[in-house]
């Protein structure tokens, strides 16, 4: 099935619509495209934004009054 999808994607590209068939703005080996639903799809990144494993152990700075507008 993946081969068929890749072939269809190739044909669509030949017709000049290759930009319609990319995944997260780049080719996807599985022949799949990614479409934006809700948020833009992001590639998983290790250690993105200096992950802090203790982040959830710290009290969050959330002001209830601010939130309750």
């Amino acid at each position: 099935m993946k081969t068929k999808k890749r072939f269809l994607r190739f044909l669509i590209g030949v017709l000049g619509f290759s930009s319609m068939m990319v995944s997260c703005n780049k080719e996807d080996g599985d022949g799949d495209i990614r479409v934006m639903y809700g948020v833009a799809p992001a590639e998983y990144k290790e250690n993105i934004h200096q992950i802090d494993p203790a982040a959830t152990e710290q009290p969050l700075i959330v002001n209830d009054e601010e939130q309750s507008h």
Partner: protein
Amino acid sequence: MKNKATKIGLRKKIALDLFAKYYQQKVKEHPLDTLFWECTLRCNLACKHCGSDCRKESLFKDMPAEDFLRVIDSLTPHVDPHKVMIVVSGGEPLMRKDLEYVGLELYKRGYPWGMVTNGMALDRARFDSLLRAGLHSITVSLDGFAEQHNAFRGNPQSFDRAWNAIQMISKEEDLVYDVVTCVNQHNFGDLERMKRFLIDGGVKYWRIFTIFPSGRAAEDPTMFLNHEQTVELLEFIKKTREEKEIYLTFACEGFLGGYEAEVRDHFYYCGAGVNVAGIRIDGAISGCTSIRARYDQGNIYKDDFWEVWDKRFEMYRNREWTRKDACKDCKVFKYCLGGGMHLRDENQNMKECLYLTLTEKK
């Protein structure tokens, strides 16, 4: 009425035919790549156009984090987590104090996650804590300049808060983001000015959608664009994309005839139940959370999520049932398959057809 939407050139038509075959392959595989979590129906605003009719207090309690994470753990053996985007939606996700906890747990399990927010509660401290919890993608709503945005949102500070949030987000490396604008009668005339405002403010990614009749929006006819405005809107998007000063795209709403491939990066298709699933506040397993009709396929409190995803969703994957009324003899049915599932009501009738709006002067 003849316009660009009614004319689909031969080359594009062949590409659309091939894409329809591609879509059928996708249906057979139904590779889950997007999972919505409706984590709360509470909201710190009460927007006029809210599709979920959210308010400060909700009849539904927030879903406990552990219940959602249990679903994730049951899903993990069946997917490559790196390829499944978890989209936290609401309500307003920032109403939850344990969002960072859930986010970090998702990150630890290898899932990229993102959220849609109105930006009201997104100050520097909260943003930093979300980043430390592995936030990968974020969308902030901005529905015009201060007067309109605040009027829609019913809060005099909402524009400033959203704009401050956008300014922070747009400067953050490694974070995928966009600004989303709901275009309607009230802000339609400001699009050019808004484009310039966003560009000058350093925003690079902008997405536009039109109102669909759901939730509170269904009650206000001034929210909807007419034929001429809808055509003009697509022309605006097309022109902006050609200018390349800001990356602008139209949302996934519906088939656009001749405008296909010109206002967004993909041919139209509704991924609900094909590659997109949603878990609603009450545990219902559905397509995307924009679908307000109860086309639920199961419930996480009774069913195994993966079993439901793999074996059910028949009405999402075979849309022949939509071939009725205006769709019955429609010449583009093979491309649009009855439109987005979120545009069908409880009785499976179509609430709105963007293609009809574009091609017929009402």
